[in-house]
Every structure is written in C-alpha cells, then in structure tokens.
C-alpha cells in the first residue's frame, strides 16, 4: 500500500529527521535468518525495509549484493518463498513499509498480474525494479500503480532536467536517488554534489527523495540526511552479515546482531541531524 509509505515519511518528517531505509537480501544466508533480520530491523531504527529478490544476473549490483543473491539462490530462495517471508513479517508488523527490490525477469516469469496480487496480499507496499526505465512502464509500473503498489523509480546523476519529468511521472511512494554513476556498494559519493542533486529533484516533485549507493556508516548517514528525506543502506549491511558467516556460508550466532548493530549506528547518524520541521 502506498499509504503505508506515505504515513512513514510523515512520521519521520514530524520528528524532524530523515528516514532510514535498509536493504537486505531475502534468503541470505538462509530464509529463517533473513526473516529474523527483517523482523529485527525496525526495532534497531529502520523506518522502511527493502527486501532483495534474488536474481542470478544482477547487472547493477556490486560484488556484495551479487554474492548475497547467489547465497540465497543456493539455499533455494525464490519469488514465492520471498513473498512468504514478507507475509510472516507483516503478520507481526502492520506499519513498517516493505519494498521489494530486484530485477524484472523473476517477476515476468512469475506472471505480472499474479505477482502483483500475491505481493499485495503478502503485505508488500512498493517495488523497485532496476531494469525497468520509464520507457518500459507498460510492463509493471502502470499495472502496479493500478494494483495500489508504489513503483519507486531510480533517478541518477545522468537523469538530467529534461528527462526528470519522465522519470518522475509514474513514480509513487518516494524517489530513489542513486548517488553515483555505478553499481551498489562501490564508490562513496561526493556529499556536496548529492545535496545539490536532491535539491534539483525536489524542484520537480513533492515526493520524498531518498539517497542510496555508497552510504556505509553513521557519519555518511548523517552527511546525506542533511538534505535528503531518507537514506538507503544495503551493501554495508550485507558486508556486516557476510563477516559473520562460517566457512560454508551459514549463519552463526552473531549474524543477526551484526546487522542490527550497524543499523543502530546508522539510525543514530540519521537522528543526529535535526531538520527544521517544514511548514
């Protein structure tokens, strides 16, 4: 539901701070651990949770998320099982928005109409599908909007003012600004440029603008939170998770804690920047 996302941004706004959006991969390193992580995120300070839909060929992702997807696939994670995990999360948490993020092929193969019905029923609120630019809106974006799910678009440093209206046209929930030209988990952005870009996008839309790619620490979070409505952290959480796995890539007693510890640090970073409550 788009409303769940809107309500969450309103809450953060009322608290005078940016939202913390976290990304972890469904089924990494195994389904039950990934669900346990997902459930622990809101308590650690995540405002919105993104759950990755594993895919063999994630062409916009860096090594950390590539490996996470392969770990999940290796233990048999698939689209139906991912929706099941979200259903179980939603049974205990009716308020935290859940965004499913991935690539189009598994959704296309599942069947777009069936996927949208099942995702909505499971409690998904929005979708980020990396390989569906506005030129392919008929495929999933417009059907998702009709089904009441937000289709969250990525805007990038190459999205100029001329193209921005097309990118924003059917976007709902929030706009995800990709802070660098590059893949996830790679370079750390120039935070000054990011702030300028966020300002530029905000001139074109009233939607919240969140910033992702390259945000790794509480200090980064604080830096980006100055100008943006939210920050996304993914690869850094997955690196923290990976550091706790045993030599067979299995979860250990430290796995969930390693992720929540970093989320708490990021949350403090976000909360350290108090914004003027906008009128």
């Amino acid at each position, binding site marked *: 539901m788009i409303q769940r996302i809107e309500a969450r941004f309103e809450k953060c706004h009322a608290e005078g701070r940016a939202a913390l959006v976290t990304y972890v991969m469904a089924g990494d390193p195994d389904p039950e651990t990934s669900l346990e992580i997902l459930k622990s995120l809101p308590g650690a300070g995540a405002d919105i949770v993104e759950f990755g839909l594993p895919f063999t060929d994630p062409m916009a992702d860096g090594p950390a998320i590539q490996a996470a997807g392969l770990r999940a696939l290796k233990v048999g994670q698939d689209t139906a099982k991912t929706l099941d995990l979200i259903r179980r999360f939603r049974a205990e948490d009716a308020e935290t928005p859940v965004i499913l993020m991935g690539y189009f092929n598994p959704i296309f193969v599942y069947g777009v109409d069936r996927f949208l019905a099942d995702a909505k029923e499971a409690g998904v609120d929005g979708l980020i599908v990396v390989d569906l630019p506005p030129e392919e809106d008929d495929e999933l974006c417009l059907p998702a909007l009709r089904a009441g799910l937000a289709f969250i678009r990525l805007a*990038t440093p*190459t*999205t100029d003012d001329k193209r921005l209206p097309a990118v924003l046209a059917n976007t709902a929930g929030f706009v995800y600004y990709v802070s660098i030209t590059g893949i996830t988990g790679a370079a750390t952005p120039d935070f000054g440029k990011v702030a300028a870009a966020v300002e530029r996008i905000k001139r074109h839309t009233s939607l919240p603008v969140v910033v992702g790619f390259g945000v790794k620490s509480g200090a980064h979070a604080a830096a980006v939170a100055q100008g943006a409505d939210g920050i996304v952290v993914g690869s850094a959480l997955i690196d923290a998770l990976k550091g706790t796995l045993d030599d067979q890539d299995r979860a250990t007693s430290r796995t969930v804690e390693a992720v929540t510890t970093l989320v708490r640090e990021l949350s403090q970073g976000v909360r350290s920047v108090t914004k003027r409550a906008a009128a």
Partner: protein
Amino acid sequence: MSAQAQPNSFRTGPDERGHFGQFGGRFVAETLMPNILELEKAYDEAKNDPAFHAEMAYFSTHYIGRPSPLYFAERMTEHLGGAKIYFKREELNHTGAHKVNNVLGQILLARRMGKKRIIAETGAGQHGVATATLCARFGLECIVYMGAVDVERQKPNVFRMNMLGAKVVPVQSGTRTLKDAMNEALRDWVTNVADTFYCIGTVAGPHPYPAMVRDFQAVIGEETRKQMMEAEGRLPDSLVACIGGGSNAIGLFHPFLDDKDVEIYGIEAAGHGLSNLHAASLSGGRPGVLHGNRTYLLMNEDGQIADAHSISAGLDYPGIGPEHAWLHEMGRVQYISATDDEALEAFQLCSKLEGILPALEPSHALAKVMELAPQKSKDHLMVVNISGRGDKDLFTIAEHLKQDIA
C-alpha cells in the same frame, strides 16, 4: 508456432521502441538510458549520412577485405549428393570471423560520438579480438570483459588481444562465462557512462543494438544475393547459419526475409543434447528478460538464468537476439539444433573435403547441411555461412579427438 498473423514484410522491425513483436525493448538501469537514447540518435544520424557509409565502405574493402567470396563447395556437394552447396566465406575477413563487420560500424560510430574508451564482452574471443583490432587501428582505449572460464579455454585469443593493446579483464562472478562478461561490461558502462562506448558483439542487448548490429552484418546477405545472381542467375533456395546471439545468421538472413521461396534455417547449439546441458534458447527456453531485451532464455521455473553449454564458446550463451525470437514465433525461420558431436564431425568433414577449417560455431551449421542437403534436389542452391575460421578451436578440437598437440 505458425498461428500468428503474417506481416506484409519481415524487414521493417523493430518499432520505435525497439520491439520485434513482443521481443526486444530497453530493459536497462536508468543510469544507462540517456546513453542508449544518445546512441540511438547518433546511429540514426550516421545511417543517413553518406560520409559514414563511404567510410564504412573504404575500411570494409581495404581493411577487412570485403566482399568475402561466395564459394561453390564442390566436393562437399558431391559427397552429400543433393543440394548444390555454397559457402559464404566470412572466415576470410581480417581477424577471421564475421564479428569485425559489426565492430567496424560501432567503432566508426564511437569516433563520431567522440567516445575514447571502448568496452566489449567476449565469449570465444572473436568479438574481443575484432574490437581490440579496430581500437588499435584508431588509437582507442579498449577493455574486454571475458569470463574466467573462457579466458582459460581461449588462451590464444587472450594473447592476441593483449598484443593488440587491449586490457582483458577475467570475470569471476556468476558462472564466469559470456553472460557474466556481459553483466560486468554493463556494470562498467553504468560506472563510466560519460566517456565510454559499449561495443556489443551480437544482435542482443537494449534497443538500438539488435537493429544496429544487424544492419552492420547485413552486408553478408546483401553480397550473397548479388554473388548468387552472378553465379547462378537466381536467388538461393535455402540459407543455413549457426546461432548463439545470432549476428552472423541475421546478417545472412535479413536481406532474404521477404523472399518467401527462400527456406531459412538457424542452427542452435544443442551441446550434449536438448535433454541435457545445451545452449539452444529457442528449442529449450522460453521468453524472459535479460541484458536489456526480452527474448527466449534458458532459465528455471523461477526465472533464474541457467548455465548454457556448448563445445563452442561463441554459442555458449543462454539467450538469443530478439529478432530471432520473433522470426521463430512468426515461423519465418526454422530453428533447429546440432550437438557438440555433430559439430565435431562436420568440422572434420569440411576440413578434409574442402581444405577449409571452419570454426566450431559454423561447424554446427555444416552439421545440419549434412542432414538437409541430401534431402534436396541437385538444382537446389544452399548457402551456408562459414562465419569464422577454426584456428582458435584447434586446442579444443584436439582435446575432444583425444589428440595431443600441446
């Protein structure tokens, strides 16, 4: 499938959004969209610029060595006892394969666009060698992504690329073959959008690549038409070509698609057999979305891409160009497949009868010529595209024939 309504022409695609029927499209990350739109515009301008065509023609003649001969394979014809077999000899091109036709076009386009850094993916290494060659010729930086598995099995081509001044990057992600090389090239492009031109080696990827690469390869079919008219005074009765992504095949087929009496056969790689590991996307796959386009893909029931297998690294890809997927569904081209063993047998027959060592890729086409030609009458004119020469495959072939040449 033949239930589809037939179009007036098979040669007008794609539409302005890059679709061949339901196939094709532009399924890429937003970061790349401005680049892809810029490329489309630049290509449209070049296509209508006589100076661009003149430059293409000059280098085609003096650098690549075009036109390639259409050669009557007399002994193979006698041996098979049916159709009159002609070879379109793309293996005689500079760098030894049809790949260079496309690379020439794209590199001249990159120059027009002022791009100084060229990236490419390669499987067998033929596209990588062609790209490294033209980058050397025009003084451009060249980075070639190649699966680590392919780097191992195609060492001579890796060395060639190094000698030509290119940087070969072994790709360690995923299955470490061609599809992963393409993922890695896309990751590079997303990172270096401003100065980089992505030179794709086949008729796949986001629009405009499938159409643009086809246009650059269509010289194969255009020459064949003219040469067959000169040799026999009429058009051929059938065309045969191998298909990985499908660029040599579409290059031969496209100028003949509206000649309804010309039978057209595309040969996919059946690897160890269609019920086993193979690379035949049309025979054993179904529609999906990968690498910027919708096409037939080898994948599991969850849409996860499967590992392809072929003895030929150049056919070892789990997808196929979107125009082939459409021609398959329209029933205009018949897509069949040849196994590793059939290709090896055809390689040996062609070498011994014609004194031509074909690459393992066109050996798949020759394998089906061995089946098709005896079924045809002696006045049936059959053209097979010898898309590359076999020198690069000698180590692989020796290994399979259990002969030691190292």
